[in-house]
């Protein structure tokens, strides 16, 4: 049945990214506009009226830091400064921990450079009682919620200060107290779980919502579909965030996104309000999050938000991005850096200046360095974790089982029997 080439249009198509190593990054097809003339609709609007918001790009700040437009949020300079501080702290901690990983103190590390606005602005726009279902790139949530940094570092060091007893890889935090769901190494799984949490919240007639994250690449998992579908069916109070940072390890977003226009537009087919936002624009992320949270709390159900951003560094400490994309791609990204842009905005509105900024960076650097020292004093994979091997057998079930007790005995760590 195979025909001559001339006879058929049939051929297997494999999409490819714009740039590969050796290419000069060129994003000139992206027209950076102040905003796409996207009005801010009523929070209870029919989902189908968000179609233009799903296809366009909601922005508040221009590249000079001037904020305007229908999505300009009501937010005090104090909150913006808190956001700036949390973003800086996230980046400084990332840098420190990555360096420590290179020195062998940690087995692994994973940065969020370039994406700090997503986690930080969103956290400041919701309540502390809202439960976040993060991926491994939302460390900014914990920092914005003032989670003790030392505990984060101890988790990464897998040492005696790790409240999860070194059971998980570095960066896989968990804190019910801080509304931060235990991170799973399996991509996507938490997206549908967040819907269950939200349904429970609604069932209990609480006002708390769930805030879920997924990467552009991970939207291809079944859990993404389950989440959008169940959220739609049961009108769950959840915000479903897609962080489109253009890359999934070495795969560009077109591998998961295919021929679709935007990831946000996926939400429309499920009858969910869907917004696409400049993820490097702190104010815009803040604004859309407020909108989605209010919609959810007022019974309007779930919103899908695509954060259009760029993963400015390698996937993780195990990755070498120069193998699959030009090193210059990050700096060529037309939507700039979220920290620089918020700093610029604060300066433009007269609430910040370079001197204060530099002083803050110095302060935070010292804080990160000192905190790291304190954390490392409690042990590390390299120097010995100080974690009691007996704990390995605990917590598989609520109560110790005879089988595990016997295995612990064989392993030499003792028994729980009296």
């Amino acid at each position: 049945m195979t025909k001559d080439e001339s006879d058929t249009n049939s051929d297997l198509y494999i999409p490819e990214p714009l740039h590969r190593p050796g290419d000069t990054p060129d994003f000139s097809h992206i027209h950076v506009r102040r905003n796409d003339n996207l009005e801010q609709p009523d929070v209870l609007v029919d989902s189908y009226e968000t179609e233009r918001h799903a296809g366009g790009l909601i922005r508040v700040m221009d590249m000079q830091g001037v904020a305007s437009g229908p999505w300009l949020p009501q937010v005090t300079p104090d909150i913006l400064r808190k956001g700036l501080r949390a973003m800086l702290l996230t980046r400084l901690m990332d840098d420190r921990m990555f360096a420590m990983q290179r020195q062998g103190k940690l087995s692994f590390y994973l940065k969020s450079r370039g994406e700090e606005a997503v986690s930080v602005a969103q956290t400041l726009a919701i309540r502390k009682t809202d439960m976040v279902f993060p991926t491994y790139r939302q460390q900014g949530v914990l920092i914005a919620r003032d989670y003790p940094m030392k505990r984060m570092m101890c988790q990464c060091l897998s040492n005696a200060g790790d409240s999860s007893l070194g059971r998980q890889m570095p960066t896989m935090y968990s804190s019910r107290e801080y509304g931060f769901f235990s991170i799973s190494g399996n991509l996507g799984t938490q997206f549908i779980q967040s819907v269950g949490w939200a349904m429970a919240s609604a069932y209990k007639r609480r006002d708390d919502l769930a805030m879920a994250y997924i990467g552009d690449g991970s939207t291809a998992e079944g859990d993404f579909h389950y989440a959008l579908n169940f959220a739609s069916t049961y009108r769950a109070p959840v915000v479903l965030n897609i962080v489109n940072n253009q890359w999934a390890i070495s795969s560009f977003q077109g591998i998961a996104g295919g021929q679709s226009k935007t990831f946000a537009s996926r939400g429309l087919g499920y009858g969910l309000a869907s917004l696409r936002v400049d993820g490097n624009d702190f104010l815009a992320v803040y604004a859309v999050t407020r909108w989605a949270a209010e919609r959810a709390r007022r019974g309007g159900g779930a919103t899908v938000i695509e954060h259009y951003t760029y993963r400015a560094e390698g996937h993780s400490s195990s990755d070498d991005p120069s193998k699959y994309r030009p090193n210059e791609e990050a700096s060529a990204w037309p939507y700039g850096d979220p920290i620089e842009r918020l700093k610029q905005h604060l300066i433009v509105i007269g609430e910040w200046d370079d001197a204060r900024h530099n002083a803050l960076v110095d302060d935070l650097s010292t804080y990160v360095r000192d905190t790291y020292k304190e954390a490392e004093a409690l042990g590390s994979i390299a120097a010995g974790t100080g974690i009691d091997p007996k704990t390995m057998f605990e917590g598989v079930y609520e109560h110790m089982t005879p089988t595990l007790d016997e295995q612990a005995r064989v392993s030499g760590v003792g028994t729980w029997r009296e």
Partner: protein
Amino acid sequence: MARMNMIEAIRSTLAYQLQKDDDVLIFGEDVGYFGGVFRCTDGLQETYGLKRCFDTPISEGGIIGVAIGMAAAGLRPVVEIQFSDYIYPAYDQIASEAARLRYRSNGDFTAPLTIRTPVGGGIYGGETHSQSPEALFTHICGIKSVIPSNPYDAKGLLNTAIETNDPVMFFEPKRLYNGPFDGDPDKPAMSWDSSELGEVPDEEYRIPLGEARTIREGNAITILAYGTMVWVAEAAVRSHGIDAEIIDLRSLIPLDMKTISASVEKTGRCVVVHEATRTSGFGAELAALVQEHCFYSLEAPVQRVTGWDTPYPHALEWHYFPGQARVAAALEQVLEAA
């Protein structure tokens, strides 16, 4: 004391749990208004309301994912997977998530959910309505696996499962829903009225997970079985006049190794019976454990009587099903071995 079939025992237990605890929610495919394809939730939506017992999309992964989120938030979901043959799309959520949430978060989050699902063949359901996938769950630490063989146990075990703070797989042998089944498809169907174990007390009781039930005492040989095969083994033993001790495991994880060891040490011989595919079935673990624990008492190798290593066929299902003849043959072989 009421005579109940297993469906009624399950349904009344679910009703009790709904009644007792606002945090118990029941959901799954067709379980709401309709009451489930096997009727286990019949009437629950009407009595307890739309929000307590409702239909879900056909999305086993979604059902379990949502249940995990609810459970972590403090509810106690009891979900139904319509046939255990359809549980695989949810396998990741069960094995990677429900089973490990407590461990990986050091107890910060837990997933107290119960997954009810019918298992086993004998209803001409072919390869996709007959499977017994329990071994795929016993290999996953962090989750418990329970399988009742009669209405009395179904109620006691289900109450415990729902109240347990760990995720529990609750396997329901569908061939036993309406009556005990001895493996002979040509005999008229029996009802649970005919069995003592169809007597289900009205008061609520719990059977701890990890305690086997000795169905029949004996001295010549120990039979380890669960679910439908308990009744097949019982009939084989009865009709062949074999002095066998039959242990109904009831709970596979945790396993009542004490009762098993004591019996095998007494009899010196052991046959394991299950309906699932043989290779890497739960029978393998049982055989391994028995020879580890009771090697010096054993007078013959532990034998397994199981489904074959083929998909469950439709037309030939009674050739696949490990019936009385096969059980008896194995018993005799093991009894004769020296």
